[in-house]
């Protein structure tokens, strides 16, 4: 129950600092854009026409075309929300761990009957909860609006929300590690964005090999590739899942989760040993 108290406390802090509210407002504006500005009337009009006159072979082909249009729109939106959602989530949560570790605050928390790992993990899960609630609102609301507008209820779109939360979880594990070691929100943000920025480059690192003078730099790039989350590939996976395409490999997700778990365990280990 005390563990849940830390999560609740983190949510309360986020709410009080308006980050939760800001996140919510941005998402609501996005929904309003979908609701009023996004033109999918040709889709709904086409669907309605097909339904009115029954479904023969030609009409099935029309439905299939419309379906692909809707999926195309949704997979594009999912990719956009993947990027925007993670961007916002990083800013919304970057200060949580460093704030907890400030002198005067951390003393009060460490003097309570918690194991240190409970305190840090509770804070981590609290941040994840903040993002999960907002992402659920983002994706769930977008799905409802799009589905209502198009008449086409494409549930794989919801899977993009799950992937966004998982990817954020991995990035936040890195931010938690940096937060515990550097105790600085700015450095945590930089660390997360470095991962996001370099991920697409690492994906095409074989094209960079030719520019590198020695083999060791290639190994270094390979090492970084395998030891950092593959956010670029996960963006592609998100799009593919929403588009209903077969995902060639789930290795990027599994590897990223493993990296995230490693950073989180590292953060807990350092936190256990640290003097405050």
């Amino acid at each position, binding site marked *: *129950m005390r563990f849940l108290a830390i999560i609740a406390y983190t949510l309360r802090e986020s709410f009080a600092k308006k980050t939760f509210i800001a996140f919510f407002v941005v998402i609501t504006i996005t929904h309003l854009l979908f609701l009023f500005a996004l033109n999918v009337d040709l889709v709904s009009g086409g669907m309605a026409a097909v339904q009115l006159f029954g479904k023969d072979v030609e009409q099935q082909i029309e439905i299939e075309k419309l379906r692909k249009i809707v999926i195309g729109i949704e997979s594009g939106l999912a990719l956009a929300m993947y990027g925007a959602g993670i961007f916002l989530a990083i800013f919304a949560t970057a200060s949580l761990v460093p704030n907890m570790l400030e*002198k005067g*605050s951390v*003393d009060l928390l*460490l003097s309570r*009957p918690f194991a240190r790992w409970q305190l840090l993990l509770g804070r981590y899960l609290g941040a994840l909860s903040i993002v999960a609630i907002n992402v659920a609102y983002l994706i769930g609301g977008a799905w409802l609006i799009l589905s209502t507008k198009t008449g086409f209820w494409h549930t794989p779109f919801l899977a993009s929300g799950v992937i966004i939360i998982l990817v954020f979880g991995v990035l936040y594990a890195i931010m938690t590690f940096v937060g515990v070691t550097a105790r600085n929100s700015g450095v945590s943000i930089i660390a997360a964005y470095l991962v996001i920025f370099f991920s697409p480059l690492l994906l095409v690192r074989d094209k960079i090999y030719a520019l590198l003078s020695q083999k060791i730099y290639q190994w270094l790039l390979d090492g970084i590739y395998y030891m950092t989350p593959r956010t670029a590939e996960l963006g592609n996976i998100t799009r593919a899942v929403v588009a209903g395409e077969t995902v060639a490999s789930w290795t990027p997700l599994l590897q990223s989760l493993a990296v995230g778990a490693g950073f989180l365990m590292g953060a807990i280990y350092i936190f256990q040993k640290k003097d405050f």
Partner: protein
Amino acid sequence: MTIIQTENLSKHFNRGKLRALDGVSLQVGAARVFGLLGPNGAGKTTLVKLLLAILHQTSGTATLFGKPVSDYELRRRIGYLPENHRYPDFLKGGAVMDYFGRFAGVPKEQRQQRIPELLKLVGMEKWAATKIRKYSKGMMQRLGLAVAMINDPDLLLLDEPTDGVDPIGRKEIRDIILHLKQQGKTIFINSHLLSEVEMVCDEVAIMNKGKIVVQGPVAQLTSIGLSYRIETSALAESAKAKLSEKFARLDLQNGHLEVTVQDHAELNRLIDHFRESQTEIHAIVPQRRTLEESFFAAIKGATSGDFNEMTKSAVE
């Protein structure tokens, strides 16, 4: 029962270059008010943080209630008021107490009962619904004390509990401390305010440069042996001379005598002398050193044994 026990507890920083705590051994029993004094940088806060496992010791041992301090469940029985505490300023006073009560594992029903009681005890009942960013320093200190008591702890660790509090508030806090002692609680106080410590503490330890220089009951530390101030009616010069001959460790001041005797028998001989010479005795007051004087003497390097020696040589 021993509540706090440390054995050669040390904490070094910078690979041993800074010895914040150096071989500290002390014991604090139940239902005692123990004061820890020392100049800035003496190691007082370091010791308290080691007891709470906020810092990890370099060597030595520390136990609370007979168990290693690393056992985090011990902290269910502990209340802590840090020196520079920072509660989340977006919360109201009552909410701060509720959250930290939750963290301490206090059930909801108990929190609902204890929060208004404790806020009233520290004089903050009217401020429970106000965000703490509007609190003054003294109010924050009172709230901190209430939060430290939310889980009805058996041991209270208070670091500068009256810092920033007005004189009336200080008296109220002293009364709370004494009331808690009567309830069987153990209170461990870090303080710079020697007069405050002298008023509430049963026992004190004085630290300097990471070591305990002297430790003992307040009465013992402030005692300078069998020294008395005796006020009498006017003494003739011949009487004064006779007194000086008979009683070597006697200091004739303006209107009174200060004398150190070897034992009570010698004191009684002095009283007999006055009576024989028909000198009126107005008062016989045991001399004490203030805790402040003891503190300065200790910091200058004296041990508890040396205190009395210093005083004897001063009188002679």
